[in-house]
């Protein structure tokens, strides 16, 4: 007993010393600028900003799955895949694609190449249009892109494309409207007031909930936010391809909403705005003329009835 007591006392002394030292260091650590405790994400600590690179790869992997593996590598012509087709098909992302999306492999070079193409996905298909089996009843299989989008958005929460794409397929192909709304709201938490996310959220209310006032509020807020973000920026940036695209989408959808609500004057006003940034102003003008004609017929009809 006599021999063990000093060791126990020594242990106790060490324990007290350790606790005291830990408490002292903790006080200093809280005030230290390099303290990451508030966002103790192991990935963040380990790879930092490289997460965005990985996020990009996972986003691309989702598009690979959207094409059931038929996708260009770094050795192929990627012009037709500059913008992910899965995002392009949502209608919420501007397309920068050019060239032939079906022939990125180019002509066959030799007999090995001819033979090889039997052992890889060799046809351009989209998962929500039946995929390799061309069975349109299987459009729900687009769900297979979701894991990669989820991982991508976790790694880079500021990349809005992942939320837009995931939300679109959740609500249109899988009938999961509530989940789609949740995804978009999560996106808005990380990217407050983003016009593209608000545009897609407005579509949820307009196309799925058929809640016109709510959709109108969201789209008008999106336009206001866009104008706020563009304030003080040069015209070249304001009229960039991507900016024109989102303004045109917002104005067009607001016009369609007003048409659905029977507010033709407001609809015409939005069509006029859409015409400025539209790639087909003639087509928009034609629609405005039709609306004006309808409006004139409506206003003349009660007058004729009164006579």
């Amino acid at each position, binding site marked *: 007993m006599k021999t063990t007591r000093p060791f126990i006392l020594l242990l106790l002394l060490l324990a007290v010393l350790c606790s005291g030292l830990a408490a002292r260091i903790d006080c200093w650590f809280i005030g230290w600028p390099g303290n990451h405790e508030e966002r103790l994400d192991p990935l963040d600590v380990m790879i930092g900003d490289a997460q965005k690179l990985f996020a990009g790869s996972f986003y691309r992997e989702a598009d690979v*799955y959207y094409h*059931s*593996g038929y996708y260009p*590598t770094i*050795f192929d012509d990627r012009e037709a895949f500059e913008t992910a087709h899965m995002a392009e098909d949502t209608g919420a992302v501007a397309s920068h694609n050019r060239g032939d999306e079906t022939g990125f492999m*180019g002509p066959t*070079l*030799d007999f*090995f*190449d001819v*033979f*090889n193409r*039997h*052992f*890889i*996905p060799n046809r351009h298909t989209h998962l929500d249009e039946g*995929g*390799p*089996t061309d069975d349109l009843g299987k459009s729900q299989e687009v*769900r*297979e892109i*979701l*894991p*990669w989008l*989820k991982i991508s958005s976790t790694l880079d929460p500021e990349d809005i494309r992942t939320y837009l794409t*995931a939300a679109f397929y*959740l609500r249109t192909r*899988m009938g*999961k409207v509530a*989940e789609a709304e949740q995804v978009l709201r999560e996106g808005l938490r990380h990217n407050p007031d983003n016009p593209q996310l608000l545009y897609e959220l407005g579509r949820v209310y307009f196309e799925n909930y058929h809640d016109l006032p709510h959709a109108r509020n969201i789209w008008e807020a999106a336009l206001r936010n866009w104008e706020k973000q563009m304030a003080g920026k040069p015209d070249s940036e304001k009229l960039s391809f991507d900016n024109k695209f989102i303004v045109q989408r917002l104005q067009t959808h607001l016009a369609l909403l007003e048409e659905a609500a029977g507010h033709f004057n407001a609809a015409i006003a939005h069509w006029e705005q859409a015409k400025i940034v539209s790639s087909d102003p003639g087509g928009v003008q034609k629609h405005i003329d039709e609306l004006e004609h309808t409006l004139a017929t409506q206003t003349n009809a009660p007058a004729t009835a009164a006579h």
Partner: protein
Amino acid sequence: MNKIFAISNVVLLEMYRRKDFYVLFIVTALITAVMGSVTFFKDAEIVRYLKAICLFLIWASSLFIAIGATARQIPAERESRTLFPLMAKPVSRSQILLGKFLGCWLACGVALVIFYAFFGCVAAAREHQWPLANYFQALALHWAMLGIVVAMTLLGSLVLTAVSSNITITFIAAVAILLVGRYLHKVALSMTEPSAAIITGLYYVIPHLELFDVRDLIVHNWPLIPWGIWVIALAYAAAYTALLLLLSWLAFRRKVLQ
């Protein structure tokens, strides 16, 4: 032929006692199970990411098993001096070589059957379908590819002095062919001479292992490969394996064993 089978049987028994396969299988099953336990957007039918991960692990494991096991065969026999009593028996060097090849290749086949059965169960649990013909095609092509790899490793074990260097070089060569073998000719077209000619020559000389990698077809549920094409691919693998075994035999025949 009986002598070849006898030697291959010994190799199979040795592989059965080794822990490599069990460890790799457990690791594959564990990682697949962990990844499978994750659900995305409350959808329990999402499966392709899981199939891709599982198949990747199977491919990596099978390469480790094939290269690791084959590379040790002849050097281990020489080191432990069991090669000399074996050669004192009425067996030729070619029979030893073929026996070693067959044993390793069969062991890979047994491992693949277990791996693919596991993969099939994982996929069926979520997809509720069992495309046996597709799995059979993929397994056969995979096994044929491993035949080339085993023959390549056997040749390496006779040409290179250390087991570790043989394992490293063969593994790097196999992975490099799998990753870029398909694109060498395309890359050569954008190069100037003489590098273009060298790369094009390399393209025609290397065994095109990537041909046998049909994971994308399995993961994304593509239709079957035409059976005629599939048979030609197997014949291509058989021809390449035979060529590599012939080279191994030439190397082994002249080798001074001490």
